[in-house]
């Protein structure tokens, strides 16, 4: 009798304690699985966009959103509040200073405005001929002169063109800079193309993509100092870093070729086997078993 009692109490306690530990496990489980980023579905349309696309806005305001939608920022989920501040999820706070709303920047404040995120580029620009001219005389290019304000596309060498650069001076200086950039930029272009190809073919390109971006970003930052000699002297360093990525890319292409060859070898063997088995099967017909 006592034995049965002890056993029952032990079993019931064990069940309860698993129940209790399951309760605290539930918290950890919820935190790990349910509240993580993958548990959330796509976000809703921001309050900023809702107002600025409505018919109560004038056409200029509506055009801003259309411009932004075509931009590289939009493709990377950088939207209104990321630059202008404010609360995108709450219409009443969407333009509130409490939530950091900055509004449209004054022209003189544009470098600081873009430089909130693009820190390194802002620093190089402010020390460059372009930046100093702009700060002293408010004439000269700011970020939006070359890049636009809302329809910002991926930066490329095409931004250095006769039309844009001759607004203030002759093109020959810009041409010199474009030539100095050429070698590294073309390497960067090729690497970018190859990495995209490799990615679609199944190769893990994460590490090389980061190394590519790192070199790419640093080189572009260097350009903003508008110092042709600096660009020229650093070009060989960048070429060397890029060559490391290029050799890894070549290794990946070799690996893909090996895979194809090995599969082709197996393919040929099975063709051979099919033929032999077929002939063997036919040799037993008409049946003589």
């Amino acid at each position, binding site marked *: 009798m006592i034995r049965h009692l002890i056993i029952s109490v032990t079993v019931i306690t064990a069940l309860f304690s698993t129940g209790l530990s399951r309760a605290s496990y539930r918290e950890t489980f919820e935190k*790990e*699985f*349910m509240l*993580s*980023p*993958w*548990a*959330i*579905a*796509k*976000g809703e349309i921001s309050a900023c966009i809702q107002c600025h696309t409505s018919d109560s806005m004038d056409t200029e305001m509506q055009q801003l959103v259309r411009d932004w939608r075509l931009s590289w920022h939009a493709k990377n*989920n950088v939207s209104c509040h990321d630059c202008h501040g404010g609360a995108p999820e709450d219409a009443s706070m969407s333009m509130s200073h409490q939530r950091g709303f900055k509004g449209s920047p004054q022209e003189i404040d544009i470098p600081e405005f873009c430089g909130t995120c693009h820190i390194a580029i802002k620093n190089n620009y402010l020390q460059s001929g372009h930046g100093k001219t702009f700060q002293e005389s408010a004439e000269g290019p700011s970020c939006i002169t070359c890049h636009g304000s809302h329809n910002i596309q991926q930066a490329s060498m095409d931004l250095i063109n006769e039309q844009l650069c001759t607004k203030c001076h002759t093109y020959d200086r810009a041409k010199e800079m474009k030539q100095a950039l050429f070698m590294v930029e073309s390497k960067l272009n090729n690497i970018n193309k190859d990495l995209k190809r490799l*990615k*679609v*073919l*199944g*190769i*893990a390109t994460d590490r090389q993509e980061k190394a590519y971006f790192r070199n790419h970003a640093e080189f572009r930052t260097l350009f903003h100092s508008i110092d042709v000699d600096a660009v020229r002297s650093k070009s060989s360093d960048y070429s060397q870093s890029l060559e490391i990525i290029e050799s890894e890319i070549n290794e990946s292409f070799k*690996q893909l070729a090996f*895979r*194809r060859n*090995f*599969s*082709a070898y*197996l*393919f040929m063997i*099975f*063709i051979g*086997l*099919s033929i032999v*088995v*077929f002939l*063997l*099967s036919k040799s*037993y*017909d008409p*049946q003589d*078993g």
Partner: protein
Amino acid sequence: MWARIIHWIEVRIGIEELINKHLRQFRSPKGATFWNTLGFVTLVAFIVQAVTGIMLLLYYIPHPEHAFKSVQTITNDIPYGWLFRLIHNVGGNIIVAVIIIHMVHVFLRVSYKRPREITWLTGVLMFLLVLLACITGQLLPWHQTGFWQTTVTTTIPSFLPVIGEGISSYMRGGEFVTGITLSRFFSFHVVILPVFITILMLLHVILIRRQGLSTSPVIEPETDASPPDDFKREAHPEGQPCFPHFSLKRLFMVMIYFTVLFFILTFFPNLFLPPEANIQADPMTTPEFIRPAWYFLAPYQIIKTIPNDVLGISLLVIFSVVLMFWPFLDAKDAGRNIRKRPMLMSLGLIVLALWIIFTIWGMYS
């Protein structure tokens, strides 16, 4: 030396008798062609999936933070990991094609009639379970393609009234596709579905061996108008012994299966891996084109075409049920020669044609 080993086994298992009974005396019907071997090819394809699946299981990690990286590691860092991953990926698609061809052949042979109804039933059930295995398998690499295909697939049942939301919720383990869905799909794909498929397969094969392979009514015309009333094993005395004649036919088709598999692997290794399959699942970004796998294009297109979602889904459910119980719905006294049954032939061909049309439409829409 060999003879002594064989004799040792013989004394304990009686292997000679087993080989005689099951391989030599078991005969395939006269006029058995290569088409009759497709069931065996399906079995081999399933074993290939199981073996490559187990190999992948050695390195795969079923957690949202690690799943994608683990599959990338298998494909790129583990020696020959790419080979087993691609065989599993391509094989998973080929097995569906083989099953469909096998089903069409059995249908056109009208082999599902008495006494083979259970064989047909288990076959269709296996087909549905294999499709489920494909659905669950798609999510496991946790890439954009699989994640969003799963989101769509698990949302479709929710259109059904009353039970729809419940079904979707059970499938996903919640309102959205999350780590819980991954765990759930993983256990289904690796254990639950293979166990059930194996049980059904054993039933299927035991029945076939017990009853004997069905004849082609064209070559061995039915002697009596109505099917037999008591158990009659079809011995096919005029047919060929299973070993080596029919076995060689089976082996040949298996070689064709492997040839097709490695043809795809050599020339189109990414046929079933669209570009989004190389990007980790991102619940915040929907890719521009989400399309289901090719074998689901037809049902998906049907649901998209019919304006009423409930009607569309019910149609598919009814179709599956009718397919499963077809032997019981087919005219009881009608014969097995499909050339003498124009209605059945047209029905079969119309369904097949519709399926192909909807698949192609789904590909381009």
